[in-house]
């Protein structure tokens, strides 16, 4: 069972914070992807995923992260301006040797989730922050 709360903040760019509360597994990850899609449709381009109260994450949770990260850097056909920004973002990502996702970042995973991110290489793809303010400031 996964509960999701959503918050909008400003930090140069608008940043959406999505807090996942509960257990992210194969029975709940599609809901999380749906939430990501909905946020994207509604204009979210920079997303911070608060994992502090996610008590469990399975490999299907990684699929959700993967999916949402691609969404956040992808094309937005419904809005040419955003589309351009997205293309720009993709360029930035390609140029960026660190290869961290610029538009989807993670906040405060529990030790077990952190280890799951480590052993699957996801910790090399996503910036992981301990502090919320620092995480927000890193966008834009």
């Amino acid at each position, binding site marked *: *069972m996964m509960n999701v709360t959503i918050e909008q903040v400003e930090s140069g760019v608008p940043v959406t914070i999505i807090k996942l509360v509960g*257990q992210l*597994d*194969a*029975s709940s990850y599609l809901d999380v992807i749906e939430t990501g899609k909905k946020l994207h449709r509604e204009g979210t381009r920079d997303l911070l995923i608060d994992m502090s109260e996610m008590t*469990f994450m*399975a*490999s*299907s949770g*990684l*699929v959700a992260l*993967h*999916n949402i*990260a*691609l969404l956040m850097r992808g094309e937005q056909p419904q809005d040419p301006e955003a589309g351009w920004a997205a293309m720009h973002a993709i360029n930035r990502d390609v140029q960026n040797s660190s*290869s961290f*996702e610029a538009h989807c970042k993670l906040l405060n995973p529990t*030790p*077990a989730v952190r*280890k*799951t991110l480590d*052993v*699957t*290489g996801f910790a*090399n*793809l996503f910036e992981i922050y301990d502090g919320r303010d620092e995480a927000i400031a890193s966008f834009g």
Partner: protein
Amino acid sequence: MSAITIYFPPVCLDDLAEIRRLIESAVVCLWEPGEVVTELVIAINEAVTNVLVHGYQGQPGHMVVKVSRDNAALRVCLQDQAWPFNPTAVPTPDITLPLAQRQPGGMGVHLMRQFTHRLQYRALPEGGNELVLVRQIEG
């Protein structure tokens, strides 16, 4: 306590959280909560999920879980009645690829390997599969 066996009724993905919690409770009868249990439960969850998703393909199916302990290790034996499939033959994924070049998924068996010390598979003579996850606790 040294060994607990749980017979599940036909289960599907909706039951996953409860299956996980019950198996965790059984493991915690044999070993104190902590990193070992948390990681072992992640591995077990991947094995159970694969049986439900790929093995039974969303249809309800039976499952028997036996957790046991000797001095050196926790063993979790998972039996199903699905088509034979040997997860220990799944190749190791490349975890250094950038996101855009990765296929989503394919991390389940990898997590099982990372969070256990040994995986043992056999096709059951009466049909179905047995997967044993072994996690060392000492030595």
